[in-house]
């Protein structure tokens, strides 16, 4: 049910190559002791699936907002195919954790919105909307309102809304964090298929190690306070990856080991005083998360 037999759509060829570059970006918010993001350099190759993983407060959302053009870095700069990023734009489509779909519009109208803003003629719009909805398997729900959709369906509409604009880069901000485990697994699979079909560059942010390992070509592990790149891990397993396969679990264990120390440090920071992380933290059973807040 996930394969569309390589059907050709106009979503498949990005108009630009899609090389997303962050060059030594730093950002500190005025009321914060630490830099949210400090001296981060990241180069996403066209078509690469990069997952940034880190605990809450590690500045991963800030990083994504800088790439989206919603936040200006204090120093350093972001660019897409050599063009500096200064404002939000449809060539860097974003999928939000809380979907951000417009409740006054139907599914199809939500997907159509970006095309309408871009001045695409109505006849072409409806074709592209139909294509995008077919890609996320929601053709049957095009006339539904947002509150009539399930959480997983909303995120699929959100992905369709981003893809329909044929962006060079897809920015995903913990898009599956608020879904149940089963739906999340399903969407991981669908996203991998979509990525294979469209060859978009994807910058994906999560606090789930399992999610990172399942999706990424390259995992960027972030530190907290200040938010710095701690480690980069390349994942050379073929897509689409199967949920819970031994390879995945082995790698996830490895990554968790890698960031164990950091998680402990963060937990200790959050608990402030008497917390003894070396006694309590058992990352073997640590349920996938890198401390989404304790």
């Amino acid at each position: 049910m996930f394969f569309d037999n390589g059907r050709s759509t106009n979503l498949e060829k990005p108009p630009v190559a899609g090389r997303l570059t962050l060059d030594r970006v730093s950002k500190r918010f005025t009321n914060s002791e630490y830099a949210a993001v400090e001296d981060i350099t990241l180069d996403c190759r066209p078509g690469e699936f990069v997952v940034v993983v880190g605990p809450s407060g590690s500045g991963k959302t800030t990083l994504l907002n800088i790439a989206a053009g919603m936040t200006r870095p204090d120093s350093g700069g972001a660019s897409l195919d050599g063009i500096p990023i200064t404002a939000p734009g449809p060539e860097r489509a974003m999928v939000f954790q809380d979907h951000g779909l417009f409740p006054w519009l139907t599914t199809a109208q939500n997907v159509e919105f970006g095309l309408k803003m871009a001045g695409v003629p109505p006849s072409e719009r409806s074709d592209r909307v139909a294509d995008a909805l077919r890609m996320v398997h929601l053709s049957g729900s095009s006339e539904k309102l947002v509150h009539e959709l399930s959480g997983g369906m909303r995120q699929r509409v959100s992905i369709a809304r981003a893809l329909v604009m044929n962006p060079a880069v897809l920015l995903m901000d913990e898009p599956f964090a608020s879904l149940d485990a089963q739906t999340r697994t399903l969407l991981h699979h669908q996203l991998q298929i979509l990525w294979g079909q469209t060859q978009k560059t994807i910058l994906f942010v999560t606090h789930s190690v399992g999610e990172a390992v399942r999706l990424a070509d390259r995992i960027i592990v972030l530190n907290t306070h200040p938010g710095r790149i701690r480690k980069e891990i390349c994942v050379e397993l073929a897509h689409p990856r199967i949920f819970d396969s031994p390879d995945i679990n082995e790698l996830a264990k490895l990554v968790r080991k890698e960031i164990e120390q950091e998680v402990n440090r963060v937990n200790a920071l959050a608990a402030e005083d008497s917390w003894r992380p070396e006694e309590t933290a058992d990352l073997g059973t640590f349920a996938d998360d890198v401390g989404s807040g304790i």
Partner: protein
Amino acid sequence: MLGMLGIPSGFGEPLHPGWPAPLEREPNQPPLPWRIVHSQLIGANIVSAIRLIVGFSISVFLGATLGTAMWRWSALDEFLRPAFLGLQTLPSVCWVPLAVLVFGLNETGILFVLVMGSTFGISISMRDGLRAIPPLYRRAGLMMGARRWRLYRYVLFPASLPALASSLRQGFSFAWRSLMGAELILAADRQGLGFLLALGRDNGIISQVVAVMIVMVIIGMLADRLAFAPLERRVHNRFGFGAAA
């Protein structure tokens, strides 16, 4: 029968010398519908309706504009909001003396009372509603290329519709009450439903007073039930807020 209870029946001789004599009950009166059609009631309702439509439109325009401005510029909000909240507590008839002194006993005075009685409430609820728009809509709109006026037209305005519908409904009831109060006291051009009420009082006709009050209640309720409540419910259903009262 009322006379037996010591209450003036409202028919017959004027209660005070110099006042116009109340309507005599004639023998062989025409049927009630005929009398309603040929009474002052229809004309009074038309006059009041025109005043309401004009005044309420001004209130909605002013209120929505002020509310949007307060939401947009926080300095303006800090300055106006406490003032508006205070003025909102002022009963609308308290604007009547000022209206008389500034505008005189005329249509402008009545409109002034109506606008003052409903604009502040509409401004405040519009501002509160706009502030309740999730910032995510704005970010999503910007991401999809909705800039400047397009962001207002296609994202922020539709997102504010639930707030606008609720403030319209509330504003209408304020406007209706203000208008009746103003007509009752100002009696401009000796027209309008409020004036009919005042006339009933002046002539000591209890039946007229009570009848006009009932008409006021019915019109206020009909407007709410047939126009503003369904509008609010439709918008809220669309947004998935569940059924509104």
